[in-house]
């Protein structure tokens, strides 16, 4: 009886030597390659290749429908004397610095407020994020209407309160237009900064504050020596993203001013669209976008060091 069972068991499956195929199927490099294929196809065809092509186009005089000839740095030389381009660089830097700085200040403040003990905290947090999830173009249209030269609700309210006598020409005047688009950008960016910083704040243990208070720290000192150092890594990353997306912004400007009045609100992105797609000189447009790359690299470096610092602070191995 027993040996019958044993025998049938032994008969069942002779142990095979693993074939080359079996070895291949458990080889992590081989499997990894195939797992990466779909993502790699997209990223190479539609990201890496166009990125290289863009740099190449910036050295040519390509137009829409005509592949260009290599003309060296001519596009860049031409741009360096182009006052519209120089204005757009100035605008981009102004837009990025002012908007990012205010987004950071207001975002951090809002995060600190939301971190307090509050009724309906979850709902509040959800509501705060709404400007971020509504498509930028659609909220930009709302702002366009709010900034209307004749029927602006802001002008009307200020006039009723007696602060002004004339309607404010929000988008028709050079500096008004700049501040108006910057405000719209801040409005959209604050929720992102606030909610991500809030997530960082929630990991700070309250006992640290209690200990500091017992030691006689003022509220400012508690912020400066506890909150801020513990938040630094996440601030670095959040602000890198914020700067990056502000710097390359296109939608808000395009919807609200199209770069006007008299090119005063053109950012580099909107100018490159106008030159490359509307006017058809791809080469020149590509040169403008390529000129943005050094700035982006700067932002990426900051982010990189922010991440490194975080690892170093937590004392974790790189896994």
């Amino acid at each position, binding site marked *: 009886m027993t040996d019958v069972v044993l025998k049938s068991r032994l008969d069942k499956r002779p142990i095979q030597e693993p074939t080359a195929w079996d070895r291949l199927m458990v080889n992590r490099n081989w499997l*990894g390659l195939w797992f*990466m294929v*779909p993502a790699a196809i997209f990223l190479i065809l539609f990201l890496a*290749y166009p990125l290289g092509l863009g740099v190449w*186009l910036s050295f040519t005089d390509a137009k829409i429908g005509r592949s260009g000839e290599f003309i060296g740095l001519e596009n860049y030389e031409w741009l360096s004397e182009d006052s519209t381009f120089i204005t757009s660089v100035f605008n981009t830097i102004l837009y990025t610095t002012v908007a990012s700085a205010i987004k950071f200040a207001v975002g951090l*403040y809002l995060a600190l407020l939301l971190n307090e003990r509050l009724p309906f905290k*979850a709902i509040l947090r959800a509501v705060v994020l709404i400007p971020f999830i509504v498509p930028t173009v659609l909220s930009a249209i709302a702002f366009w209407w709010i900034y209307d030269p004749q029927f602006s609700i802001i002008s009307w309210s200020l006039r009723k309160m007696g602060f002004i006598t004339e309607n404010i020409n929000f988008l028709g005047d050079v500096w008004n237009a700049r501040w108006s688009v910057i405000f719209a950008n801040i409005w959209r960016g604050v929720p992102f900064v606030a909610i991500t910083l809030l997530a960082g704040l929630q990991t700070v243990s*309250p006992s640290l504050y209690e200990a500091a208070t017992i030691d006689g720290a003022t509220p400012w000192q508690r912020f400066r020596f506890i909150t801020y150092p513990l938040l630094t890594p996440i601030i670095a990353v959040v602000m890198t993203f914020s700067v990056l997306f502000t710097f390359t912004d296109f939608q808000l400007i395009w919807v609200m001013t199209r770069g006007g009045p008299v090119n005063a609100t053109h950012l580099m992105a909107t100018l490159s*669209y106008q030159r490359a797609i509307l006017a058809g000189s791809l080469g020149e447009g590509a040169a403008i976008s390529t000129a943005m790359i050094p700035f982006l690299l700067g932002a990426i470096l900051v982010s990189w060091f922010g991440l490194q610092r975080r690892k170093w602070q937590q004392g974790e191995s790189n896994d």
Partner: protein
Amino acid sequence: MTDLLAQKAADPKSTLNASTAAADHSDGMSYLNNLPRRLVTLYLPLGIILVVLLFPFYWMALTSIKPDEQLLDFEKYSPFWTWNPTFKHIAKLLFDTDYPRWLWNTMLVATCATAISIGASVLAAYAIVRLRYKGAQWVGGAIFLAYLVPPSILFIPLSTVVFQYGLFDTPFALILTYPTILIPFSTWLLMGYFKTIPFELEECALIDGASRWQILVKIVLPLAIPGLISAFIFCFTLCWNEFIYALTFISSTQYKTVPVAIVTALVDGDIYRWGSLMAGAMIGSLPLVVLYAFFVEHYVSAMTGAVKE
């Protein structure tokens, strides 16, 4: 597995920190603040910020239901409220324009691009985190860099590429280019989620003879469902929000997405256009807001996860 445990053991500080932070549910020292003080330092600023953040939406919604004669006349009628709401603008939008078609286009493009991206990202993230093939770390870094490449420096060369591939002015131009924005983001997010799934589960499955594919489908994916939902929602929102590619690659009105169509096709010389414009903006945001309302937590974790990892 062993090194994971060893690391835990060697790093008691981090576990200690985590446990104290988790156990401390008290409200800290907030009892020290009395009500009047909280009113000025907390509720007032919070209230102002909230009003500023939400006013554009209120104004959008209100404009879209105001009758024409109240739309521009602030003197005779209070601009902040209306007693006779009308659905005229919304009806005009839905029945006299291609708006439903644009909504459908946006939905189609967003769904397809998101599905493609999630599929590709799951495979890539699993391979990077768990297969750990040679150079996986470098590929992970490269994907993070790809995340930082913004559409506004890519659209010019991409437009020539799209033209070369014969995709210009078709929905495929968008379905195939959006994943370049979505894949780096969702791969990065999913890498974070996959890292939290214990190795031991996979090791058990390997001993039981499961192939890598079976492990991924039957063990890792079911455990990563919250991460998948986060990635899905965030990708969907990004697609819906995308503007510059849709503006550049699509020229015929019938293929446009909502954001582009509103800006290019709805804006006409009509002085009362604001009603239908605002209605368009409101209806275009509604699907996202509804989706968001159901999945707030996932959304927030997607946003913070992508930044933190």
